[in-house]
């Protein structure tokens, strides 16, 4: 199997689908000749032409709204937000038009919105956000967040084929740092969680870049055997997998790169507190970014984003509980 980066895997998924299905096309700012701010669609315009690799005006509401229009006509647009942060400018079209369409009138909206997200490289308050929780709280949107190259390709393929609007959270910090074996051809990865590492004494629940932080923080702990559960999908949320891990391990750390309040991690913790309370041998510990904008300067940014040591400390403390 070829080895590729997380970024290449994303490109690969789109390329495969565009080759196989005329209805699939990509649209966004600077994705054509330029190949996208992160070069995810590099070379696409040569293979597929400017119609199917559409440079749009600088207008996120239009990108999403027009994608919805194309989708109800049977196209399968993949929209790129240049940074996930800019989805705030297309928020209304996503949560009110795209999300509610099927429930309200039985009309399916097959759009995929790619959201390059996350911090860790001095992007500052507007290029570092993890906006997924807003959309978890907007019924009608599916949301996935891969942590590996293999899952990036498989989840994106599933997303493109899914008849519903799917937000694809791709973590910028993983683009080139994460590599892995990725099967050629198209394959679908289900919207379910995945045990990234088996363990018995404590489970760290995470998704996206934080899966790697979790794995690194718990790789060689003497204090106990730590499981890492990679959620992969936030909507639908794989509640069975979460509850199974908690049942097995009895101790949980929920890890989130997003701001803590009302984050995906809050939902996971609330779920556990309600449905796995009897299985718990300690509090549901959360590690997340405090409720502030992501600051620019490295010293400040590192102080707010969850670091390997933060996770290690939380895990150790809970194991010793």
């Amino acid at each position: 199997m070829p080895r590729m980066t997380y970024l290449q895997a994303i490109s690969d998924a789109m390329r495969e689908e565009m080759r196989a299905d005329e209805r699939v096309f990509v649209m966004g700012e600077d994705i054509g000749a330029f190949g996208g701010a992160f070069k995810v669609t590099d070379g696409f315009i040569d293979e597929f032409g400017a119609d199917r690799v559409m440079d749009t005006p600088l207008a996120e509401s239009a990108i999403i709204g027009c994608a919805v229009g194309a989708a109800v006509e049977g196209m399968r647009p993949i929209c790129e937000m240049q940074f996930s942060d800019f989805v705030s400018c297309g928020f209304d079209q996503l949560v009110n038009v795209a999300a509610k369409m099927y429930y309200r009138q039985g009309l399916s909206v097959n759009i995929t919105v790619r959201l390059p997200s996350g911090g860790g490289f001095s992007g500052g308050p507007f290029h570092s956000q993890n906006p997924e929780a807003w959309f978890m709280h907007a019924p009608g949107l599916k949301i996935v967040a891969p942590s590996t190259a293999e899952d990036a390709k498989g989840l994106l393929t599933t997303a493109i084929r899914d008849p519903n609007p799917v937000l694809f959270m791709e973590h910028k910090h993983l683009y080139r740092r994460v590599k892995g074996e990725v099967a050629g051809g198209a394959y679908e990865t289900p919207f379910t969680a995945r045990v990234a590492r088996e363990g018995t004494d404590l489970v760290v629940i995470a998704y996206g870049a934080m899966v790697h932080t979790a794995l690194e923080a718990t790789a060689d702990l003497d204090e106990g055997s730590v499981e890492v559960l990679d959620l992969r999908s936030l909507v639908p949320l794989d509640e069975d997998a979460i509850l199974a891990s908690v049942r097995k391990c009895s101790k949980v750390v929920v890890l989130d790169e997003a701001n803590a309040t009302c984050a995906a991690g809050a939902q996971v913790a609330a779920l556990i507190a309600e449905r796995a309370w009897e299985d718990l041998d300690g509090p549901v510990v959360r590690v997340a970014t405090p409720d502030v904008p992501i600051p620019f300067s490295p010293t400040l940014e590192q102080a707010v984003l969850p670091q390997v040591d933060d996770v290690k400390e939380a895990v150790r403390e809970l194991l010793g509980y």
Partner: protein
Amino acid sequence: MASTETAPAEVSAHLTAEDRVGLLRAMLLMRGIEERAMTLYRQGKVPGSFYDGYGQEAVSAGAAWAMAPQDRLCILHRDLAAHLIRGVTPARIFAQYMGRAGGVTGGREGNVHFGDRKLGCVGMVSMLPDMMLVATGMAMAFKLRGEARCAITWFGDGSTSRGDFHEAMNWAGVQRLPVIFVLENNQYAYSTPTTAQFAVSPVERAAAYGFPGVQVDGNDAEAMFEATRQARERGLAGEGATLIEAVTMRMHGHAAHDDMKYVPAEQVEEWRAKDPIDRQVRRVEELGVDVDALREEVRAEIDAGVEEALAMPMPDGATARDQLFADQEALLSDGRGPWSGF
């Protein structure tokens, strides 16, 4: 700036006598349905609020008449005639208003928030004018696939102030898309007069987006038809979008609860003399058609629709959580396009 104020004689070249009667029929049906619905509302049978398009019937009837079965429509809240022309039955509309299981949205949505996807319509959302972008996106799909089809949407004078108006106009202009924007200028946005909404009529903006803006007497169904027909021809010919400003007047309050005290009485009187149905009645009577019989026929259809709708059950609460997500694609299909020219 291109701008037409076309007299009826000039605009009817593309309409047969049957078309003209059809237009009148659609308008009578719209007015009759909305009047009856208002009564049902007062009787407590219509939950939520209730909006109508009294006095604006020509805007949706005239424009929708020009659209072909394979065209696509995003119909707004004062445009019931467009739904009727596409083929939605009165019974389903009454059921929609009353939140019954047999309504167009099965009770999930209320009042005018509907569209029958099987008739090529996408139901509006409340956020105005979001549907302009959806219509633009449908037109984009037509262009990408090289299909000779158009999308159309309506929106009010107030709606022109939102960012989505601009993003849609600009996108349609830069990509030369076959989309028709019908600006329904009924002088008010809820209580707000157009003077608080814009300094210059938005029809003037079209040129700055690279396509024509046309001002039309919105109380003349045939003028609306003709302007829309021409806009559609432009779209099909690859010449891009058109903005049609339909100048009309909202003759009722914003919604059922609104007594419209903020509108000067003279303004209402002035516009009452321009009633779009009266105008079309005169034309159709000149053709020798028995309009009283037509009215009777329409009334009977409405009576039957109300009865049918009242017999429908309310939706089952147990289904409220179902079908948030689609298991498979469920897309638009074609509606009716009754114009004799197709």
